């Protein structure tokens, strides 16, 4: 009769492997703490450099000043030696471009999300969704190039033929292209949100005789509203933090204006302008980039926290 081989369990190797397992566990925990370490590093580095900046320029001037002309004096008796570090024109410029972008992206993004979620067949979906993902995957430097090369001159010429004065680097051009860039984000997030509205709500409305479009407008969209709001907030945060499109298509002139045909500058453009090229690390000029970075980080963080909370809360509601 064949005997059954029962492997002997060697307890010492077992104990050794237990030590090894603890080691692995420590590595795993360490890796998951990296994410927190990165956040802390971001906050500390921005805060530290920004505080050095605020030693030279008061916080109030930075937050409420209406004029931005960053420069450091080479000689103390130079004209305009102090430099002006009022961030308001940058903030309004950022908001103006983001607002234009949202005006483009919201209707297009929502309409395509509704169409894809409610009307499109599986075949259309399987073609259109990857194409929209491609649109989302185009590097922003490409959008920036296209905006500067084609869209800005197009707007300038159209405006010119209508008798309007359009700056060659208008806020409108940057905003329009940025709108196309964030549109897939709105569309895909809203698509998910609309899909997670329970079918029973639709069935009830259709059963009462409402058309498909009426069901969507009166039942599905209101039910999905918090989630859609969350996706729009995430889109705003992306628009505010977007860099390359505005660096290439918006200007450097810090105009305090709400006219989309004028050139404005944004927080991100100024960070890039201040930190590329020659720099000495102690000047108020270079340090101001970190104050702007801190501003940007805090603003986007607040938007993200709210947006993610809304989206999460909303998911739980229907799960």
């Amino acid at each position, binding site marked *: 009769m064949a005997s059954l081989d029962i492997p002997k369990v060697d307890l010492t190797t077992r104990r050794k*492997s237990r030590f090894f*397992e603890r080691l692995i566990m420590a*590595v*795993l925990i360490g*890796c*998951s703490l990296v*994410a927190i370490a990165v*956040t802390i*590093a*971001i906050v500390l*580095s*921005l805060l530290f*450099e920004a505080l050095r900046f605020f030693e030279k320029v008061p916080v109030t001037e930075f937050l409420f000043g209406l004029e931005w002309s960053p420069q450091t004096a080479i000689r103390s008796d130079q004209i305009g030696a102090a430099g002006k570090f009022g961030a308001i024109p940058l903030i309004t410029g950022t908001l103006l471009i983001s607002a234009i972008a949202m005006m483009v992206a919201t209707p*297009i993004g929502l*309409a*395509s999300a*509704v*169409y*894809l979620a409610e*009307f499109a067949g599986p075949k259309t979906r399987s073609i259109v969704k990857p*194409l*929209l*993902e*491609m649109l989302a*995957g*185009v*590097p*922003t*430097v*490409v*959008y*920036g*190039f*296209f905006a500067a*090369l*084609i869209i800005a001159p197009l707007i300038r010429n159209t405006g010119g033929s209508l008798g309007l004065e359009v700056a060659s680097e208008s806020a409108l051009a940057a905003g329009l292209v940025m709108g*196309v860039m964030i549109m897939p984000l709105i*569309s895909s997030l809203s698509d998910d949100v609309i899909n997670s509205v329970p079918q029973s709500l639709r069935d009830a409305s259709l059963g009462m005789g409402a058309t498909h*479009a*009426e069901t969507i407008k009166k039942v599905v969209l209101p039910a999905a509203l918090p989630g859609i709001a969350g996706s729009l907030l*995430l889109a705003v*945060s992306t628009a505010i*933090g977007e*860099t*390359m499109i505005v*660096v*290439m298509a918006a200007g450097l002139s810090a105009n305090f204006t709400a006219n989309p045909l004028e050139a404005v500058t944004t927080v*991100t453009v100024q*960070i*890039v302008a201040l*930190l*590329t090229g020659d720099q000495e*690390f102690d000047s108020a000029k270079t340090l101001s980039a970190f104050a702007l*970075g801190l501003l*940007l*980080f805090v603003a986007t*963080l607040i938007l*993200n*926290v709210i947006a*993610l909370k809304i989206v999460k809360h909303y998911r739980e509601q229907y799960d």
Partner: protein
Amino acid sequence: MTDPFGAQQIGLKKRHAAERRFIWGGRLAITSALGFLLAMTITIGWFAVGALTQTDIRLPVNLGPEAIDPQYLRGADYGKIVKDALKAEFPEVTKRGERRKLYGLLSPDAGFELQLKVTSDPALLGSTHEIWFLASDEIDQLIKGKVDVSLDESQRRITDQELGWVDHLEAQGNLRRTFNARFFTSGDSREPELAGILGALVGSALSLTVCFLICFPVGVFAAIYLEEFAKKNRISEIIEVNINNLAAVPSIVFGLLGLAILLNVFGLPRSSPLVGGMVLALMTLPAIIIAARAALGAVPPSVREAALGLGASRIETTFHHVVPLAMPGMLTGAIVGMARALGETAPLLMIGMVAFIVDVPNSIVKPATALPVQIFLWADSPERAFLEKTSAAIIVLLLFLVLMNLAAIILRRKYERRF
């Protein structure tokens, strides 16, 4: 007699019309978005075609012993030899300014090109040979039809005299367009006709390698801990919220982090793919963790229970059974994350990868640039000839992105298992 349903019929018609408008609105939105994508790719592709070819000019060059000493090849003035060849071709040009314009027909590198040819093939020495030289970017643009010759002479950069020379060369068959291999084999240059993307490509490849080596293991380990081992408590919740928020931080902030900590505190080499890769890794990490967690979550609990039931420890269960099953999903997420990192520009600007670098980088601590940064730099250049180079670099970048995403899709299709 009145139709009792008449009013409803009219109302229904209106409502159905509204329905149709609604659907068409959706179609219009999608069409306009995809139309933009199409218009953008076609426009850029159209510009990019020009970069595939270059213009060459053929000149009879005297390589006799009076010009080059066969014993001492390096001692010869190759620039002067080329200039003499041009002078011989157009003897009527005698004024200084005109001569300078004449020399401008060829790329400033023509002398160096000749030296390379002669050194690699000494049989050329001793007599006069017909040799093809690279034309300058302005002549190249002219030949490609990018210069509007119908404009008044004062409005264009190419004079009538230069047009005459080009016509003369063309009539004699001394002008040709060839495939521009240099674009794919050389580094950056101030001269558009000499500029290539190899340096930027290698820089991108080095940065992405560093990025992958850091963020894939760290991201996967973090995901394994959070998905397989972490208890549901405050700390794991904080980590989770933190990862989600980190994923939405603007990329330029990661650049500031790299500048303040990696460069200024740790003193790592500025402009290097090492720092670039590290910054990209920090930026990509949240996306990798999220994708890896989704992949681990898709492995059914029965796999874990079976392994545990046979006496495997939890670590053994995870690493011998769960992780291999989740690997395709995790790799797919990693490839998509790498594709994003490849297209990222802003954080690299912060750590100085915008420097003008001619040499193809060969180390991760030497200054380098990356493909999207190269696009940014060329897009900023005033020379018109850089337009087609920029567009071609964009097309190359987009091709790489499409390839990476295709690889991710194929990987997903091939190895994805539904449990």
